[in-house]
């Protein structure tokens, strides 16, 4: 079973920015992603108390290196200034590259 190298992009952001991120993904023709609610602490303070709208969400996207650049660029350009957000990339191996 050979594992093919692809990228995992992980975005942790306030829940109200999720929609914007999914829109960016859709625009770049990426339809596969996984999301879940998380709590967090960062430059914009504790995000784990209060109303649901003030929670965080983590969005994970497995994608090929080719698409990574554009998406990272667009997310950072349009959302970094106004939202609580953190983003990182890691190297992973998958079986079926045709899926991503």
């Amino acid at each position: 079973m050979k594992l093919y190298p692809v990228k995992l992009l992980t975005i942790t952001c306030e829940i109200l920015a999720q929609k914007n991120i999914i829109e960016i993904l859709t625009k770049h023709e990426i339809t596969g992603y996984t999301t879940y609610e998380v709590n967090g602490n960062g430059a914009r303070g504790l995000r784990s108390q209060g109303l649901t709208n003030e929670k965080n969400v983590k969005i994970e996207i497995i994608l090929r290196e080719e698409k990574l650049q554009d998406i990272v660029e667009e997310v950072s350009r349009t959302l970094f200034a106004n939202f609580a957000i953190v983003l990182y990339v890691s190297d992973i191996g998958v079986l079926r590259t045709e899926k991503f």
Partner: protein
Amino acid sequence: MDILQLIQSNLLTPIVLFFLFGIIAARIKSDLKIPQAISEFLPIYLLAAIGLHGGIQMRTTGFENMLVPMLVAIGLSLLFTLNHYQILRKLGKFNIFDSYALASTYGAVGAVTFSVGLSFLKNQGVTSEGYLAAVLAVLEPVAFILAIFLTNMAVSKQINAKKQSFTNDSKSDIDVGLNETKIKLSKILRESVTGKAIVILLGSIVIGYIIGKEGFGPIKIVFDDLFTGAIVIFMIEMGIIAGQRLDDLKKVGIFLISFSIIMPTFNGIIGVVVATLIGLSMGGSVMFGLLLASASFIAAPAVLRNAIPQANPSLYITSALGITFPYNIIVLLPIMFAVSSLLHDPEGSIDLFHYSLKDLI
């Protein structure tokens, strides 16, 4: 009973006490909290109960008399939003984004405040017009739409101004504003109207209207008898959230704190007076005033965070939830009740000036 007595007796109801308790629990950093699933469910339940109740009552009273109050409420809400903006921008020196965000937060309505108001009236044995639930539903998006439209127009004005230094051929600001706003606005409008609060409220009004009193029978215990108890539980969580926000009051500043108390009082009293003039009942005028006095703290962040992301959310959430909400349910509600009593029965039992009269005699 004079106003102070009314405030005092209101202070000692379970709803207000559990709210204060929640604040204290948050201040002493207790780990008490209502699980998220419960505190997400309760507003849905409260709105369903309000809607059913309103719908059932509308069946007996009919819609025809609803139109005038509805239009007046929309007009006042828009007027107030513009007024807030002027005050915040000119006097408060807030930037455009914060000014519009705050203006619309206070122009919009608070469904939780409305629930507490209904419960307050119930306790006082006073009824109100059922169709006000429908006014609540319609009023919610209005202020946001105006604010978003004006924000986008302002932004395009600036962009246009820059462009004009290079070229003389340009469309009017309003055209550009309209254009750029259209896409955003239609999206926001869609989201507002399909937002859970409005959907459950309108849906329940319609269902209440259809089933009427007999149809309501088997579910009355859940959607009526449990209502006040459910608010009490929700108030614990609201208190906790408000308590966690108290630290942010410094960031909010003295100007906004005053604004968060004076503005609702002004809007609310005007609301009571206007409602009385257009013929609403004593209780209905209180609820009408409360609609105008209340600030939105559940819908506002969800709408504004995406529509005006440049605005600082901790300003509008903290002032609406941390100051205006407690002020409204503890102090302003009894005041408006007293004013409405006075206006509806000038000879009546509530005597705003009884001390002065006493002193004179």
